[in-house]
């Protein structure tokens, strides 16, 4: 009975449903229109003025130069399956590194690739005024090249007889692909910005459930609300009421996240991968984290219910903003200047977890990120339960 009523109560809470369900879906729609174009086609762009400086030569650097040459050749690009009918880059002769950097500062050139063939690293230099497209193309080229080069190298060792077939298949997708822009991730990997916006929105939707945690606390705490007082003086056991209030909201929150993921995948063509058990775990832990965080906000901040919700929402917004929801380069910038923030910001951790879950061949990064959130959840839940167990209050 209690579970049903709490569920019904939450379903009728228009503000909550808007922020946790409708708003993320609307935001995804906006991202879709903005980044995919009205007809879901590619956003066109001018070839990016680029140059390569090879600091030490190897097979790695030679292949990279070949890739860039292909991308600078409009016929090669047209004949590929990349979907563009013009060159992706315009290769410029930069001369020395200093001259190239000066050209970037003078805005005569947009991107400089510094390739170290021995170490197999590529450093990307862009000017202050580089736009999103430039950044996207540059990062995407490096990311695709690095990934594909590794695959080719592995294939050469493990299956040399199939190397030709592997290279043929990869040449169809090298590089740029359908991504719009990328930035360096926390471990030096790059994230596809287009997907990143969507994943960040999913995380935002989950994190808005902090308000659900606060409302759970207010519904059962006798010192916080009249309804809480009524439940506290009733003969119903508090643990039972708490579980009903919490899990009715939690199950709804999880259902909404699954629905958002479904919409994201079905209507906006954003991949969610095929690791269903891990996706389910991600959703369960993410929502449990936001609700337990909400419980702590409800129990330990001051003010009425609205004031506490506003504080929690402000925290969530900041966390989501720092994770790159609006400025996708932000986590990358933070990684360089203040890396600890990325390590402790729950939204960034969750974004990386999901990105890795979908895109990475191994799940180590995903599990590490999820573990961080799970530990925080256990801490928040533990603190909340200890406080919520109280049936008598020092003050009302």
């Amino acid at each position, binding site marked *: *009975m*209690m579970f049903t*009523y709490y569920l*019904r*109560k*939450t379903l*009728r*809470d228009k503000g909550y449903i808007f922020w946790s369900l409708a708003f993320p879906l609307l935001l995804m729609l906006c991202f879709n229109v903005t980044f995919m174009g009205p007809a879901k086609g590619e956003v066109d762009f001018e070839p990016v003025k680029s140059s390569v400086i090879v600091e030490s030569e190897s097979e790695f650097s030679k292949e990279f130069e070949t890739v860039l040459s292909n991308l600078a050749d409009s016929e090669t690009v047209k004949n590929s399956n990349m979907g563009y009918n013009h060159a992706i880059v315009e290769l410029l002769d930069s001369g020395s590194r200093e001259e190239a950097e000066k050209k970037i500062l003078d805005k005569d050139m947009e991107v400089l690739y510094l390739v170290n063939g021995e170490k197999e690293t590529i450093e990307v230099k862009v000017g202050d005024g580089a736009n999103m497209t430039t950044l996207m193309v540059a990062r995407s080229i490096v990311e695709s090249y690095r990934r594909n080069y590794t695959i080719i190298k592995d294939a050469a060792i493990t299956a040399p007889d199939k190397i030709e077939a592997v290279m043929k298949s990869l040449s169809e997708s090298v590089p740029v692909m359908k991504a719009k822009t990328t930035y360096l991730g926390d471990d030096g990997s790059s994230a596809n910005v287009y997907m990143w916006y969507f994943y960040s929105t999913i995380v935002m939707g989950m994190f808005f459930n902090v308000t659900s945690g606060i409302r759970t606390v207010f*519904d059962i705490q*006798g*010192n916080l*609300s*009249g*309804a809480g*007082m*009524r*439940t*506290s*003086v*009733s*003969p*119903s*056991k508090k643990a039972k*009421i708490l579980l009903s209030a919490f899990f009715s909201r939690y199950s709804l929150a999880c259902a909404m996240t699954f629905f958002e993921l479904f919409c994201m995948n079905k209507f906006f063509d954003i991949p969610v991968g095929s690791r269903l058990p891990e996706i389910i775990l991600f959703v369960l832990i993410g929502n449990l984290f936001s609700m337990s965080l909400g419980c702590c906000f409800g129990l330990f901040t001051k003010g009425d219910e609205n004031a506490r919700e506003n504080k929690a929402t402000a925290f969530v917004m900041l966390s989501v903003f720092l994770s790159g929801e609006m400025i996708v380069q932000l986590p990358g910038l933070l990684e360089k200047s203040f890396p600890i923030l990325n390590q402790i910001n729950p939204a960034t951790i969750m974004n990386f977890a999901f990105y890795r879950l979908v895109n990475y061949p191994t799940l180590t990064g995903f599990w590490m990120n999820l573990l961080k959130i799970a530990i925080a959840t256990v801490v928040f839940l533990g603190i909340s339960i200890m406080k919520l167990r109280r*049936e*008598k*209050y*020092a*003050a*009302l």
Partner: protein
Amino acid sequence: MSEIIKVDGLVKRYKELIAVDNFSMSVNEGEILGLLGPNGSGKSTTINCILSLLEFDKGTITIMGKEMSPKAYDLKSRIGVVPQEVSVFEELNVYENIDFFCGLYVSDKDERKKLVQEAIDFVGLNEFTKFRPKKLSGGLKRRLNIACGIAHKPKIIFFDEPTVAVDPQSRNKILEGIEELRSAGATIIYTSHYMEEVEQLADRVIIIDKGQLIAEGTVDKLKSMIKKSEMIKIEAKGISDEDLEKLRRLDNIFSVDYDGKYLKVEAGKGNNVVEIIRVLEEKGYKMKNVYSEQPTLNDVFLELTGKELRDD
């Protein structure tokens, strides 16, 4: 009548502030006990201690002979509470709210259905069962608040200022309802700072101030405890200071005020009106209207504490 609630030596402190100071009281089965005191006097704190919502520093509280505690579920199931604030869920309609709060006490669905309907009938919300609280007027919300507290047919009901900010019509309906509940066998503890309500309803009254028991007894007994027994008001013009002084010297007269039109006299027990009129007639004053008012609980409170009961 047997004692159903007993509070003995209750002390509740908020740091330096003593909210309830060695307070003792008892409630008899089937009575309406009025707990009267100004805002901040400790009425709600006392009730919350009795309900085991608030921790207290000293004292014992027993209900039906058993010590009250948060785990005393058998006692809690017999208690109903109507809080001061309208405490319902805005997202649920009238029926659902009553059903939810009744469900905290009664798990059987069929029984609950019957009880909820009876509560709706009792507070007269039949036409509004599908309404959400925000669509109800202030008075109807108060009735819903009451229905949520009494639907499970409790033996003891606490009403904590249930008529605050309620229109006179709804107030009368609420007061009538409380009397009906008592007639049906419930014991009622009614807190208010509206003395008229307490006078009208209560079999017995406890006056509380600064967390201390000031006086207790029936309304008549409390009134008899004070010296003043009536306030006489006479409309008369031109009374001289000399004659006012003569009135002051009469037996049983505590105070005499005159504003040029109305003469106000506070008097003790005795045949005061006749005496005063005799003096004024002797002096040839023409009198238009003569009023005599009995003392109120506010007068009792004023005489016992030196301040007004109602501070709003």
